[in-house]
């Protein structure tokens, strides 16, 4: 008879005597969990499909431009959208991505009651909402920067002299990073603020998309119909295009996208309008969660 190689003992409950990393570790855990939740990680396959498809939709325009650039060569590159005007058209997938995915970070925790478990741990409600906001902001940065980066690299490699292209256009890199950050800041804050109104992700998403669409239609209709200086100011109603104004200012270019009539409004006003559209939802979100209790 073989001698047993080992035995399994039930040593019962063991008190935890390891490290306790405190509040900063808890904040970091919240941040990582927020990004995983948004991407459906740790959940079933169906939870991953929607963010995956939306992210793909964001990449497709950049991939198409890269393929065209490789075919047309140096002579046709100048006619293709570059990093400066990429989001004139590609902003809509970004807006839809944020409207649909961002509310998931807040509505599910409230609907399931998980929020009450966070609030009895060594974090505050402010830590919670800042963690959730930061998680989606970082994800949004990836979402807006990756297509831009691919496009920049693709066009660079498609040019006759990649080194010369880089030397002539190196300043586009900090510009698209900054413009992308401005876009991500905008598309993170408003959807999360909308998610503070309801426990249902679908309602929050519909609310945000409704705001984008109505603002786009009303702003551009009034602007085109009235025209002139008043029309330019009314074009600011199209709030979804506000990050594009910042993008155009960063690249120091004329606007070619929706809400372009607002170009005649002084820069300081357009910057102020952008800051208001970010700061007001952010303040609302912060105040709403600062008072929340389990």
């Amino acid at each position, binding site marked *: 008879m073989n001698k047993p190689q080992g035995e399994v003992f039930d040593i019962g*409950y063991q*008190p*935890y005597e390891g490290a306790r*990393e405190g509040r900063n570790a808890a904040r970091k855990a919240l941040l990582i969990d927020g990004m995983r939740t948004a991407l459906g990680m740790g959940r079933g396959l169906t939870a991953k499909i929607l963010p995956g498809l939306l992210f793909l939709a964001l990449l497709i325009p950049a991939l198409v431009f890269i393929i065209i650039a490789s075919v047309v060569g140096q002579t046709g590159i100048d006619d293709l959208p570059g990093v400066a005007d990429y989001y004139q058209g590609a902003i809509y997938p970004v807006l839809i991505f944020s409207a649909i995915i961002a509310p998931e970070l807040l509505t599910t925790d409230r609907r*399931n*009651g998980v929020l009450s478990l966070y609030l*009895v*741990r*060594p974090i505050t409600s402010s830590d919670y909402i800042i963690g959730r906001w930061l998680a989606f902001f970082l994800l949004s940065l990836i979402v807006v920067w990756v297509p831009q980066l691919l496009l920049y690299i693709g066009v660079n490699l498609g040019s006759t002299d990649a080194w010369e292209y880089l030397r002539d256009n190196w300043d586009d890199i900090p510009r698209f990073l900054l413009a992308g950050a401005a876009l991500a800041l905008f598309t993170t804050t408003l959807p999360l603020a909308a998610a503070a109104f309801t426990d249902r992700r679908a309602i929050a998403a519909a609310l945000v998309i409704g705001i984008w669409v109505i603002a786009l239609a009303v702003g551009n209709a009034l602007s085109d119909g009235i025209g002139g200086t008043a029309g330019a100011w009314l074009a600011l109603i199209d709030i979804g295009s506000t990050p594009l104004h910042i993008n155009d200012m960063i690249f120091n270019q004329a606007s070619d996208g929706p809400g372009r009539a607002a170009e005649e409004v002084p820069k300081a006003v357009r910057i102020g309008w952008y800051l208001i559209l970010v700061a007001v939802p952010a303040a609302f979100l912060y105040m709403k969660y600062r008072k929340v209790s389990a």
Partner: protein
Amino acid sequence: MAELLQAAGLSKHYGSTVALDSVDFAVPSGITGLLGPNGAGKSTAIKLFLGLLEPTGGQALVMGEEPYSLPAARSRLGYMPEHDCLPSAITASEFLTHMARVSGLPAADARTRAADTLRHVGLDEERYRSIGEYSTGMKQRVKLAQAIVHDPVMVFLDEPTAGLDPMGREEMLDLIRRIGTDFGISALVSTHLMGDVERTCDEILVIDAGRVTHQGAVKGFTEETQTMYIEVDDRRDQLVAALADRGIEANGDGHGPLLIENLSDDGFDAIRDALVASGAPLRRLAPGRAQLSDIFKASGTERESGMSNGQ
């Protein structure tokens, strides 16, 4: 026993409503039952100790620290709420690991603790299933597991047996008892089921209308009384007469057991003689025992508050 929780002149007002009225009490280590009718201030007391509410007056101290102004003090506390608090889309293992991380445990330790804790609450085999697929009893165990996954010093359990069937309730009460005896974690169990307190708790704290009305060891409230119960199969009336002949007044509702109040030491001999004389076949002779519900019967709050023995 060391005092883990201390209320010093603790008050909480919601506008003109007084939820807690300058109460002073201390909760030692071990399992303590927090009893009281609806609206008595139990939940308010728990939220004050968890640092979720700011006291209107006084202090709510946990191991000498104020959790409201010092969130770090909550790292050694656990909380199992009465309401639903579980995500449905992720596995119990994933959820507990995350909760351990949010409590400050390093990633590797959090994973180990999550697996160990789920094993201790009897969910070892099911830990990789989505929580949404669990039964009510299993979800209740996950709620308990997340409250102790970071090995707290004190855990607050709010109506831990709510919604459970009799078998699930037995298992939950056994788990709570083990938390105190085997795991070495103290607990404050808020419940309206006095049977749960009698079964699991060492100490009891009774709150009514924002004030502490009773506190002490559970056994102090359930000790033997001076009442004696006698149950016979037949010849009940003859026994009553025989007892009366010996100067003992026996009361009863005509069908149930006979009750003899304030029996003297030599009364047992008289009962023996009366039983022999009457020829009544004895089924049971036992001293009475006080019940926790007697506390509330005295104040008339039991029926209107929905408090029950939960047996």
